[in-house]
């Protein structure tokens, strides 16, 4: 610790100072997950059936579609942070670690975009 120099931090000799926000966002999204995934499971339990028409009608309702989009954002973000913690613990090769972090900064975003587009299509018409 002490007076780390800027060049020292650039060389990876100091923290990026993002640890607290990572930790906090992991908790904020955990609260979101707790509410939204329990909503999804409770909704599944209460659905009268699991055929296309029933499920589609349910998810097309504004409340369901909103909750599903929020659930995608909250859970995917939480998952991305959690997988990063795992990678930081187990991936020690610098090149591979960079590849993993690059993947973690693109794949969850792409996955969330796909999921949200699906919900919007269900909610706003189309299929």
């Amino acid at each position, binding site marked *: 610790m002490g007076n780390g120099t800027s060049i020292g931090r650039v060389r990876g000799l100091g923290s990026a100072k993002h640890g607290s926000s990572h930790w906090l966002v992991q908790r904020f999204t955990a609260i979101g997950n707790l509410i939204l*995934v329990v909503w999804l499971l409770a909704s599944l339990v209460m659905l009268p059936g699991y055929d*296309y028409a029933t499920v*589609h009608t349910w998810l097309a309702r504004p409340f369901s579609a909103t909750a599903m989009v929020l659930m995608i954002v909250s859970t995917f973000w939480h998952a991305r942070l*959690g997988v990063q913690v795992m990678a930081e613990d187990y991936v020690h090769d610098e090149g591979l670690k960079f590849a993993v972090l690059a993947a973690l900064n693109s794949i969850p975003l792409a*996955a969330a975009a*796909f*999921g949200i587009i699906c919900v919007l299509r269900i909610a706003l018409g189309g299929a």
Partner: protein
Amino acid sequence: MRPFRCEPGDFMAQANNARPLSPHLAIWRWGPAMVVSILHRAAGNGLAFGGIALLLWWLGALASGPAAYQTFLHWIWTAEPGNSLQTVTTLLGKLVLVGLSWAFFQHMSSGIRHFFLDVGAGYELEANTRWSLVTLVSGVVLTALFWALLLLR
């Protein structure tokens, strides 16, 4: 072969098992808190990969129309009559769904425990062990309850 890891028996064959372990990294035995800790990570990563993949497949099928949704159901839950490959995948699909639901309820239970640990509560040896065990029980009980409600309505 256990290169860097020793089981308690390696060093403590004659020792009293109830005695506390000395603070050497290589000498340890399983305890509830350790099980819950590694399960939290395993379940979380299982959900991050398997859960998200399945969720997106489900939403994608639902957004693509009745035929695509029926195909999804045929691979995951109810095989098309005469399709032996789907007979296998629907069995695996049910296993994966039960597994993912357990992973969620286990991760949720130990996650709620983490909120208490975050504010500094529950570190006393007895309380720590007790609440670790509670998350293991609640993970299984909530999974059973969820499937009972889903299937026995």
